[in-house]
């Protein structure tokens, strides 16, 4: 069995990467250097996806979300969810090449507020439908519709539980990533989620070596730490988690009353099952309120420190903007700090735009980053404060229940529960 697992490991790691390596090979063979009668055809730009496919994609997404909700809540079928996962890999992954996905659509939505970009209907729905379903049925999108999650779902073989401190620290990363993605999209500087999408390269059979390694690394990690991208990176997961927290109906571990058999205790690969909370606490209610009050007094300080700290990154991050880096390059060339021209600086000079206009534009973008980073810092400070406040709470849970924020509705826990829908208990 060990050899068998080793074979699995090698193949799992090698398979998705191979096509990407293969297609990275040189395809633009130089044209013949001697004259021939052959006319080399002008390369044509690929046509945009036809409207029909846009509507088909929306219909398939809607159907997949509906099915996922049906399997998770009504049918309570892990097999159904699992089958849907493979369908998502094929359709949303390989057929649609992973684009546009709701995770990346978040940036389109943010960018549309700039006023220079008209948001297509397909993008709006791809962004909104999973959130809408999360509001009613929990994160069923993560369960088996998301092509990024589905790929990781396929490699969960030996999930382990991370120590709580590590889990909490890593759990802060999606908020940082979300903040950065919003910052870059709102300043028009780029779509970082798409640029650093570790799995889309597999679906397109084309990726840079760095992204390929990142993707492979995450899949390797995913064998032991289930869904690492979903849990510790995905910015859209933050939004889904918030919506899922208020879900009208959510997947439940047991269909009836929990019998505290503890079978499900370690069933969740993403560690999203909350055990019953203590009925008696050593600290008094008055003490707890006092601690809460003291912490609340510190919240403005946390917000201000975070806002100011992150605003210091203005220059570092603003330089990632194409316009700003061009302005810096032109400035270096104008002041003889840099010698020679780059393709970009040559192209800029051919445009005959005034250098002062470019500098002014760069300064405007930098200012946007400054404001954006202050907002980003305040947001992060708020997240930390809320996390601490949540840890101070006494939830009063009596049963094993899914953590509505983190539960991805994969349905594994349901299989472990011996309680049947009629209330009877299966002997194991």
């Amino acid at each position, binding site marked *: 069995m060990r050899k068998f697992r080793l074979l699995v490991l090698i*193949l799992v790691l090698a398979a998705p990467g191979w096509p990407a390596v293969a297609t990275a090979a040189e395809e633009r063979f130089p044209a013949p250097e001697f004259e021939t009668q052959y006319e080399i055809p002008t390369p044509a730009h690929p046509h945009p996806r036809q409207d029909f496919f846009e509507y088909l994609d929306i219909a398939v997404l809607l159907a997949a979300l509906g099915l996922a909700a049906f399997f998770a809540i009504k049918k309570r079928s892990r097999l159904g969810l699992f089958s849907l996962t493979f369908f998502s890999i094929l359709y949303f992954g390989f057929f649609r090449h992973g684009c546009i996905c709701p995770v990346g659509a978040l940036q389109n939505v943010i960018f549309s507020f700039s006023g220079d970009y008209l948001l297509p209907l397909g993008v709006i729905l791809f962004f909104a439908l999973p959130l809408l379903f999360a509001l009613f049925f929990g994160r069923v999108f993560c369960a088996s519709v998301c092509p990024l999650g589905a790929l990781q779902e396929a490699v969960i073989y030996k999930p382990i539980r991370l120590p709580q401190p590590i889990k909490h620290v890593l759990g802060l990363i999606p908020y940082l990533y979300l903040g950065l993605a919003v910052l870059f999209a709102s300043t028009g500087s780029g779509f970082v989620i798409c640029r650093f999408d570790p799995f889309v390269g597999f679906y397109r059979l084309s990726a840079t070596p760095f992204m390929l390694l990142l993707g492979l690394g995450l899949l390797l990690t995913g064998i032991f730490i289930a869904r690492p991208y979903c849990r510790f990176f995905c910015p859209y997961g933050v939004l889904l988690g918030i919506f899922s927290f208020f879900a009208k109906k959510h997947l439940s571990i047991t269909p009836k009353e929990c019998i505290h058999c503890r079978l499900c205790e370690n069933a969740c690969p993403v560690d999203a099952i909350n055990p019953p909370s*203590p009925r008696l606490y050593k600290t008094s209610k008055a003490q707890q309120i006092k601690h809460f009050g003291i912490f609340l007094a510190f919240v403005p300080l946390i917000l201000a420190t975070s806002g100011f700290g992150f605003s210091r990154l203005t220059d570092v991050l603003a330089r990632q903007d194409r316009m700003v880096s061009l302005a810096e390059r032109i*400035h270096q060339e104008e002041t003889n700090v840099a010698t020679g021209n780059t393709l970009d600086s040559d192209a800029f000079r051919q445009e005959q735009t005034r250098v002062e206009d470019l500098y002014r534009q760069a300064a405007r973008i930098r200012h946007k980053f400054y404001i954006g980073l202050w907002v980003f810092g305040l947001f992060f400070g708020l997240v930390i404060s809320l996390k601490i406040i949540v840890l101070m709470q006494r939830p009063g849970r009596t049963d094993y229940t899914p953590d509505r924020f983190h539960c991805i509705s994969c349905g594994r826990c349901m299989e472990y529960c011996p309680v049947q829908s009629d209330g009877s208990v299966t002997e194991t």
Partner: protein
Amino acid sequence: MNTLQLPEEKRQRLLPFYLLVRNLAVVSGCFSSAVFIILVLSFWQFNAADPINDPHLPKLIEQIQAGNNDPAFLDSVRAYDQLIRKAHFTALAFTRFGAYLLLGGISLFLLFLKLAFELHRQLPRPDKFTEPEENQAKTRVLQYVILGFSFMLVLSAFLLPYFFSAPWFMPAQKKQARPVVPLPAEATWRRNWPAFRGYHGLGIAPTQNPPLDWDANSNKNILWKTKIPKPGFNSPLVWEDRVFLSGADQESRTVFCFDAATGNLRWQKSTSAGSAITLPKVSEDTGLAAPTMATDGRFVSAIFATGELLTLSLQGEVQWEKKLPRPDNHYGHASSLITYQGILLVQYDSAQNAKLMAFDLQTGRKLWEKKRQVEISWTSPIIAPTAAGDQLILTATPLVVSYQPGTGKVLWQLEEVIGGEIGPSPAFDQDLLFFINQYSRLACVDVARQQIKWETDHNLSDIPSPVASQGYLIVPTSFGKITCYDGASGAVHWEHRFETGFHASPIICGDKVYALDTSGIMRIFKLERTFIGLANPRIAEACAATPAFVDQRIFIRGDNHLYCIGSRQP
């Protein structure tokens, strides 16, 4: 934790399926492994051969370049070139095919493996449930870890620029108060053409006797004619020796400055967005550059249907630029700009968030903004010199509003007095305000009492604006009829039907009226109680823009050319 097997009966029932999928997993795994090995070997062989960098071909090409044109040799080079191309593309096709095979094999392998795991699942054997206890220390550790990590993160963000980032390449520019450029004298204003329909937008020319006769075919009295680089329906402005107009297309939105004496293009300046902007949908007869620009003699401003607002010095240097929210306007934004004592006034009656904005022309600072509860309009503002002082008058369904032009304070307004999609701008004469729209009404307002004095629904205009002077009100229409009213009573003095309609607004020059029709014929008639036609000179192209009148010269924007008409010096 101990584990517990599935019930024996269930295990036995699932056993054949388990064995089947396990064996299938082994087969697909072996197949994938074989494909993988073949691919690796092939890749290694392909890289070793490296046909794309074949060292022989460049040498053969060098021989050709050196003059070896032997046909047999050339054929052999071609054959060799084809051979290595074939080797390259065959290897690529092989690799791609293998990659797809591998992908398919792995997918099947994972599927069967997953099923095998599910069918051979082991349930946990947990300990007995015990009542949970509060673990205060553990919770506190978590809180400290979160706070500590966050603090380290913020600290890193704070320190990072010190160690890993070069200083910002542009030194912070201290804002220096720019010297205030003085406004030109009132007399200079009055002799120029600073806005749509001239000084204060009233349609009264500063010149008394512009030419009555010209002809584009014989070039009679055509002082010059210049091609306009980009399309637009806005009217020319004239300030001293410069003529300004704007044009726009998908590529850029541009201001053009021509020499008033020669017609030569002095400079042109485009907005900074260029083609990197989403263009609004506009109708063909409105376009992207319908609003007429405005100048205060120091700076010149232009606005486009994209919401781009550009202010330049008279020498063409960008003074400031703004991107206003894109107007929600189904024909395209068309309201012209106007200036008042160094303030640029922007009527922005968009479907969403209609407003009137005032900007400092020199700095671009927004001075004030007034929300307007109106529908979309295509009218332009006028400054009415009433007995009580200057008033900024705006019309849009359903309001006629008078603002204090310096502060934006609403002085008075008439509600529910006009309807429809309003194009014509109001007219003003002797404390009487006239507003009009097709399918609505023509009304005269006594500005002192803020009451409608008279109204009619006869011969209403949809595009050209009326003009009033010396007690007369001239109302043109796009279907060719012009009506002359008595401004005070509303009595019709006369009405006359021309062959062609009007889009340009008529201009009064002393005792004469100049009305340019859509075919390029200038209908010139007396401002009298009876219709007395004087002349019908023409240019050779269609016209929609209102001409400018300065210093015995007329500047006409045709669809493609800008004309300067004036008496040639003997």
